[in-house]
């Protein structure tokens, strides 16, 4: 893992889970025009609640979620499984990127199914950036 320069925890709330649903990450001022170096995701066993006090998805719920990250206008990171970003499920690996300036308002998660996803749950992503 590279030394942490800056970190921001991004929450994406799932108000009403539906298979095939797409939820955008939205504009996050702190993450405009920054370069993302590393990413991490969490389940309820690692972080129970989000900063907005919503329950975090459990591991089964996380397996229904894929993440698409857009750089400029292209989907450079397409449908990356949410659980593949969880350190504890990947032998300690933290996903690293090189020179990626993500456009978060155009980036989104997709729900492949709804098993173990409850209304009001959140997925949370760590952005390590500079």
């Amino acid at each position, binding site marked *: *893992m*590279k*030394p*942490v*320069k*800056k*970190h*921001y*925890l991004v929450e994406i709330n799932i108000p009403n889970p539906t298979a095939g649903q797409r939820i955008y990450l939205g504009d996050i001022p*702190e993450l405009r025009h920054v370069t993302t170096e590393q990413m*991490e995701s*969490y389940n*309820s*066993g*690692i*972080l*129970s*609640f*989000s*900063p907005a*006090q919503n329950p975090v998805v459990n591991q089964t719920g996380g397996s229904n979620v894929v993440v698409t990250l857009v750089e400029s206008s292209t989907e450079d990171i397409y449908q990356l499984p949410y659980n593949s970003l969880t*350190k*504890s499920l990947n*032998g*300690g*690996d933290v996903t690293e990127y090189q020179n990626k300036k993500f456009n978060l308002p155009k980036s989104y998660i997709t729900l492949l199914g709804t098993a173990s996803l409850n209304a009001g749950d959140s997925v*949370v992503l*760590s952005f390590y950036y500079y």
Partner: protein
Amino acid sequence: MRSPNKINDKSFVASFTMEGVNSAIPNQRIYLKGLNFLTDKVLTGIRHVGEFMPQIPDFGTGTTYNNDLTSDQFFAINLLQKRTKTLTVNNLPILSFYYQRQWGRKNQYTPFNDVYDFDNSWLEKLGAVALTDQVIFLEFRYRDKPKQSNGSYTKNQLRY
């Protein structure tokens, strides 16, 4: 002995007790009391050591504080960079440190390389839960800032 345990830097294990953690208060903060000496140091790593220290002794307070990993999953750390006075580490879940230690291949510490204002940094409780008498143990690894012969720092030395 495996090399990841070799420590060239200094190390300080801090305990954070949940004396007033109240279910009614969302986003409750526990400031990193007792760590302000680190404000003059370069933080080089953080490690979670909770399960090695299941509890701290009763120092005559009448209260025994216990560590339980399941309470640690409600907390994230927020660190203010000293140079810019901005919150550069926002809500990093502390069990991320635990899994870095458990699984990290290169080192057991989550690596940092910056000077933080520990007077104004805090742990944040996420979730409407009361965790009275729980304690969190984190090990902070640090080194002294290099100085010039006249005792001051150059611009580059401050730019960690």
